[in-house]
């Protein structure tokens, strides 16, 4: 069954239909939220907020358009809101960045450390670039779909993906064996 059909059923009160939508899009939504927030628990809370907001406003979903970008836009907004609130709550400056304490690439080979390096590199990107490159390189969304998620022109998405990739590649190329570890 297509997402749009499930969305129509969910709007009519079909709990199972909404459950199927959640299962289909859970992984994507969690990744996008984590790309914005970093912390996995907060990301899950934001993703859940996004799903519930989407459920409440299913009437505004246009079934002629793909469901994924519509949902991810809501999730990204929920995560961004949390990020803003978190920044306001923080009275002290941000903790030192992870990469300052990272061991050199030659001394670390395990996947866990590489994963931390990827997250740290991602954290240093502006939020919109983070979302754009995750949606493009991980989730396989087109520039046009990403422009709908982010609410920016396609050209801006191309630029964001370009800058994000360039930064990530520069930082991750220092890890000599990261490609082999994949």
């Amino acid at each position, binding site marked *: 069954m297509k997402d749009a059909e499930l969305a129509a059923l*969910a*709007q*009519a*009160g079909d*709990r199972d239909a*909404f*459950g199927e939508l*959640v*299962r289909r899009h*859970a*992984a994507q939504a*969690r*990744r996008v939220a*984590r*790309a914005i927030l970093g912390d*996995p628990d907060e*990301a*899950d809370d934001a*993703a*859940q907020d996004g*799903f*519930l907001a989407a*459920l*409440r*406003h*299913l*009437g*505004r979903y246009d079934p002629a358009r793909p469901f994924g970008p519509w949902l991810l836009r809501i999730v990204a907004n929920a995560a961004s809101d949390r990020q803003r609130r978190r920044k306001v709550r923080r009275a002290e400056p941000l903790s030192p960045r992870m990469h300052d304490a990272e061991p050199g690439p030659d001394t670390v080979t395990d*996947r866990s450390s*590489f*994963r*931390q390096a*990827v*997250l740290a590199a*991602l954290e240093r990107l502006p939020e919109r670039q983070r979302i754009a*490159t*995750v949606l*493009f*390189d*991980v989730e*396989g969304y087109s*520039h046009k779909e990403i422009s709908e998620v982010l609410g920016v022109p396609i050209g801006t998405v*191309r630029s964001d*993906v*370009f*800058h994000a*990739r*360039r930064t*990530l*590649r520069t930082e*991750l*190329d220092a890890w000599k064996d*990261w*490609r082999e570890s*994949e």
Partner: protein
Amino acid sequence: MSDTSPFDHRPDPELGRALEDALSAPDDERFARQVMAAADSVFGAGGSDSWWQELTAWARPGLVAAMLLIAAGAFWIGSQMGQRGNGSGTGALGDPLSAADSEQLGVPVLLAGGEAPSVDAVMAVAFEY
């Protein structure tokens, strides 16, 4: 990875795998169960987009439509009055005194009087228009 141009319009599988591996959290099923548990309160509350939410969503366009309707009505009434005034040959507003003489009531007559008009007079003018 560095052998792929950042301008490339295709997804970069290596970068994609690295990001996916770093960002993916375990146990999507458990997460889905948590979401559904929270969603039960929404379903219990009458599902999505209850009638008052729909009403709220329509409030602003409804107000705009009402204002446009009022403006159009005022314009129409104004143009009707202008035509009547032109027909009597006494200018746009007409001559309130001559109107009074002919026992024909109108808005200018009501406004020209020194005292507040009676309810009957106001009703008569309203029905006339």
